[in-house]
């Protein structure tokens, strides 16, 4: 008697769900920074004059440069998403690469900016800083805490964008693995791959000696196909990157431009 066991490979992909999840995550990030902005607001109310004085010491040129760098990177990542949607993988990769490069530029700028401050003896707990009045001390403590935390987010964002870059560059291979699909039931039968009406390949009969069966199916999209799974990943990474950008948009005036 011949019976057919069908193993179908079904895929559950919920892009709406992935996007919803990302937005919820962005909310949590915003609230994380809200805590810091609340502290900033309270201390600035308390030490308005000292904040004014301390902010004069920050380098507005480097700050402005970094603002432009981040804004541009937000543009490039948005263009990269559009490019991938229009199926021009190469252009998308170039734009994504530019975004990662700009993120690096931002961090290098930040390094020099912090380095100069530390060189002048202005860092948390330093003798130089502790001699000043309390408002300036808390200003610089907040400056290091907030831009530091933001810098950490830039670093994480860079990592995520790089990971997606690799995914897009490698094309999206999908791999499905079936382990031990009830070997005892398969005894005496043959395994074949069928797509439509055509039979792909067939293996020898499974007898009692077979203990393990593993079937791996790798699926590679054709060159003309839109790379949907990677688009959603890139879109979500882009959303995260815009968040990093927006937080900087608030940090910049609050620290550099209040004098």
């Amino acid at each position, binding site marked *: 008697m011949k019976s057919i066991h069908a193993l*179908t490979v079904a895929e559950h992909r919920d892009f709406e769900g992935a996007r919803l*999840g990302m937005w919820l995550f962005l909310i*949590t990030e915003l609230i*994380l920074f809200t*805590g810091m902005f609340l502290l900033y607001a309270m201390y600035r109310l308390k030490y308005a004059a000292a904040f004014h004085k301390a902010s004069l010491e920050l380098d507005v040129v480097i700050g402005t440069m970094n603002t432009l760098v981040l804004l541009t990177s937000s543009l490039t990542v948005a263009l990269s998403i559009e490019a991938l949607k229009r199926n021009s993988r190469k252009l998308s990769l170039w734009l994504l690469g530019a975004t990662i490069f700009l993120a690096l530029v931002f961090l290098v700028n930040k390094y020099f900016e912090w380095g100069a401050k530390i060189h002048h003896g202005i860092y948390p707990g330093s003798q130089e800083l502790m001699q000043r009045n309390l408002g300036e001390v808390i200003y610089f*403590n*907040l400056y290091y805490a907030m831009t530091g935390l933001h810098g950490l987010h830039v670093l994480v964002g860079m990592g995520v964008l790089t990971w997606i870059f690799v995914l897009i560059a490698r094309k999206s291979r999908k791999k499905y693995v079936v382990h031990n699909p009830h070997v005892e039931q398969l005894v005496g039968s043959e395994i074949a791959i069928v797509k439509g009406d055509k039979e792909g390949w067939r293996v020898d009969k499974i007898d009692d000696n077979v203990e393990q069966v593993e079937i791996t199916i790798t699926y590679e999209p054709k060159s003309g196909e839109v790379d949907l799974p990677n688009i959603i990943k890139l879109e979500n990474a882009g959303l995260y990157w815009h968040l990093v950008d927006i937080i900087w948009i608030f940090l910049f005036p609050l620290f550099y431009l209040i004098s």
Partner: protein
Amino acid sequence: MASHAITEVQHLEENYLQVKSRWRGIFAWIFSTDHKRIGILYLVSSLTFFVVAATIGIFMRLEQLTMGETLMSADVYNRLFTLHGVIMIFLLIIPGIPATFGNFFLPIQIGAKDVAFPRLNLLSWWLYIIGAVLAVTTLFLPGSLPDTGWTFYVPYSVRTGSNVALAVFAAFILGFSSILTGLNFLTTIHRLRAPGMSWHRMPLFVWALYATAWIQILATPMVGITLLLIIFERVLNIGIFDPTQGGDPILFQHLFWIYSHPAVYIMVLPGFGVVSEIIPTFARRTIFGYKLIAYSSLSIALFGSLVWGHHMFVSGESDIANIIFSFLTFFIAVPTAIKVFNWTATLYKGSIALEPPMLYVLSSIFLFAIGGFTGLMQATLPIDVHVHDTYFVVGHFHYTMFGGTIWVMLAGLLYWFPKMTGRMYNKKMAYLAWPFMFIGFNVLYGAMMYMGWKGMPRRYYDHLPEFHTDHVIATVGSWLLYIGILLLLGNLVVALYKGTRAPDNPWGGATLEWQTTSPPPLENFTEEPVVKHEPYHFRKEDNG
């Protein structure tokens, strides 16, 4: 993100415990992305922590049995109550119901195959375990366990020589785990409901988890940043709350309670959800006031975010702030009372079966009511000034957190155990454990409230002679309670090996989890359920 799922069209009658994966033994559990296995992982780990922290509690009570230093020094006592609090709050009560029963039953109750992000779900559990391991690691490092209490108040938490930074980092990671669970549940509820499962056909447990998940997402990042700032201050010397650097320690308390008060609703809302499941099942009657119960969860989530200042009545808040927070705190009793009244109305003219889960739920409502009313007393400004930092507060929050959340968690365990394991426990033993727990509980925490009212301060390892009798009574109560807990949990462990096979629907429940097999198959249902009526529908034709 999206998941690959491989379905076998030809269905094999096999439950999730029998499914073979490429991993063997314990790895088939700790690498599994099946929401049911992850739920069991959380259950086993959080109950283990429960017994550990309860044992620490027993030791603290033993120290108080006699006057003077007998069992431990003041220093050890401080570290032990910190560990007791941290474990109970972060490792048991917060993940207790949502991550265990929520993981296991949320997808089943809405007719889904799994949560929206199964791999993220596994990551949550791993973060939970990493956080737990880090918290315990402090014990073996120079500086040992933190001695600050679970609230980590500055400036003491910055100045103390104990190992605060690592413990705080552990709490940060646990918070992250909690956020990811909330995010996963919200997406699951929005995206994966079965056909016909409209919002108003969702079981009330799902509604409670929905409200909880929102609090998890909106409040937890606030404590995340607050804890990070303690680490910054201790490790990098970036003083944000340090007065010598211009900081203000009171701001720490604000930020901490902006999370930690909503967190008590993260702790108790899922418990309310479990009560709303158990009561209709054992009253054989649809729930009274379905929509009001559902929406009251949301309004508790909303108003719960606006009352944090009542933890700070004696911290130097302005009178106006105190009065506003006091008023809002009274207000939050309204949605809570809505739930209790509706549960009571559900019982009216129901055909009540006092099975073990029902017994535990009913006594939990009684205990939680005591916790709630004493909460209102403390919301009253003059009374709060009197009882602040006394055993009265300790008694109060054990009545709410233990009497409310943990009792309900145990009731939920008795209710869902046959579904999760396919085994029925010994009901007589479950009944037997009850008087130990109930009497022990009231003797222990009742005595605490009483001596707190008389002025016994909290967090002292010793007491004055006038409190001695009360402390002896409380310690005896703690033994009864501990015996009750061990009887209850021991009975379940025995049932795992010797329990009789449980039928698919032992209690005659109406929600979807009772319509599938015990234990459920890998993807929960043999065919995707289609929902045609409200969740608590006890018509004869459906129950067979």
